[in-house]
């Protein structure tokens, strides 16, 4: 009886752990998207002000030790080192998910040419897209967390019944 109870509790705990891990991944994606939104909005303001060259404003806005900041800093350095290359050729978004990559690649194409207003608009559009993705990621994180919580309880209960 004791062993059966321990097995039931262990099954419930395993389900809960899997849920927690999944939830943490989703939370990380959400936080990264939120950081992109902050960065892009800040960048848009700097571009609207004409606060400096594109590499300068990229570095000025990317001040933290997070992945989006690191990507933008790297892009700025590459733009300085290879001035003939366009941002879309230099930007490395391989560490991001497919969903995150698409709006950022579109942004890079629009950011490489055009007037101050068009580049500002490109940044605003991308920030809006990322904000939508962030909202979706947050909702998914909440839904999945709830689902895993319920699943772990259910699994624990089912196993207990079955073992009894």
């Amino acid at each position, binding site marked *: 009886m004791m062993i059966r109870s321990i097995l039931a509790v262990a099954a419930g705990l395993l389900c809960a752990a899997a849920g927690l891990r999944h939830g943490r991944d989703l939370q990380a994606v959400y936080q990264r998207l939120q950081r992109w939104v902050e960065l892009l909005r800040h960048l848009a303001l700097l*571009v609207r002000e*004409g*606060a*400096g*060259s*594109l*590499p*300068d404003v990229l570095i000025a806005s990317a001040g933290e030790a997070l992945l989006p900041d690191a990507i933008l800093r790297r892009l700025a350095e590459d*733009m*300085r080192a*290879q*001035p*003939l290359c*366009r941002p879309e050729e230099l930007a490395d978004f391989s560490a991001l998910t497919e969903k995150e990559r698409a709006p950022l690649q579109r942004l890079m194409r629009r950011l*490489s*040419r*055009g*007037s*101050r207003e068009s*580049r500002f608009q490109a940044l605003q559009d991308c920030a809006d897209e990322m904000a939508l993705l962030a909202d979706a990621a947050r909702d998914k994180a909440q839904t999945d967390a709830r689902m895993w919580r319920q699943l772990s309880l259910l699994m624990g209960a089912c196993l207990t019944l079955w073992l009894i």
Partner: protein
Amino acid sequence: MDWDETRAFLGPCFPGEVRREIDFMAPGQLREIRVRANRPAMLCAADQTLTLPWTPTQSQVEQLAEALSEHSLYARDRETSQGFVTLRGGHRMGLCGHVQERSGLLALTDVGALCIRVACQWPGAADSLLPLCRQGNAARSLLVIGLPGTGKTTILRDLARQLASDGRALQTAVIDERGELAACVDGAPQLDVGATADVLDGCPKEHAVPWLMRSMAPQVIVTDELAHAGDVAAIMDAMACGAAVMASVHGAGLTELAARPVMATLLSRRCFHAYAVLSPRGGGQIAALYDRSGSPVKA
């Protein structure tokens, strides 16, 4: 910026075939690089024009403009609306393309041609003019007359440098309306205009003169390319306030200048102490010197 620095700045912005030709140039030889969409690029040296084996597309021309401006073209719309951008090192990039009017400002789109004028500094270019412009602690006004590309700006820059540098430096103000004399980037002159020279960059002469007289009390004002009646009135104001003016004007000679109604006023009122006419051969060579009444004088 010396020639090695200029090469290091220009080189990475151009493809290999252009870079190799630039590398072959001797210091002071390269004057301009002309790049046009779907036509071969050209290097204009002092004595020859080289056609290069590089025919850029419009998109490449635009990317080159971005690269040369260090990706700051978007932020410099006021400059591009006037047709040029001052680059690091004092070089000037003239732009051509499709122009649209947006909220009262001319906006350049689809850049299709570039003219990169390589800034050069010839210390001593104005040595022969200095005795005419300076008497003790006072300066005397001088007008430099020359055709495009004959070295007017280079001579004026060296005059400013010499008047504002030695032990008896005069308070000098440079009105750099087109960013060619001092070539300021982020407020700092990229070319040597002297230790005591204050540079007012990008300001039309008619606004710049009262501004400087009010704020900097210059003994000498150096300015490039008098063109309109407003420019002439402004420098006459400066002279009336006690400042000597070193200026330049497009023209083949004194007679041709006198035929232009706007400039005739300057000559008839004998505003300048002397006139220097540059040789059409270029290189800042002085073809003739005249005193305030228009009589030839010896250098």
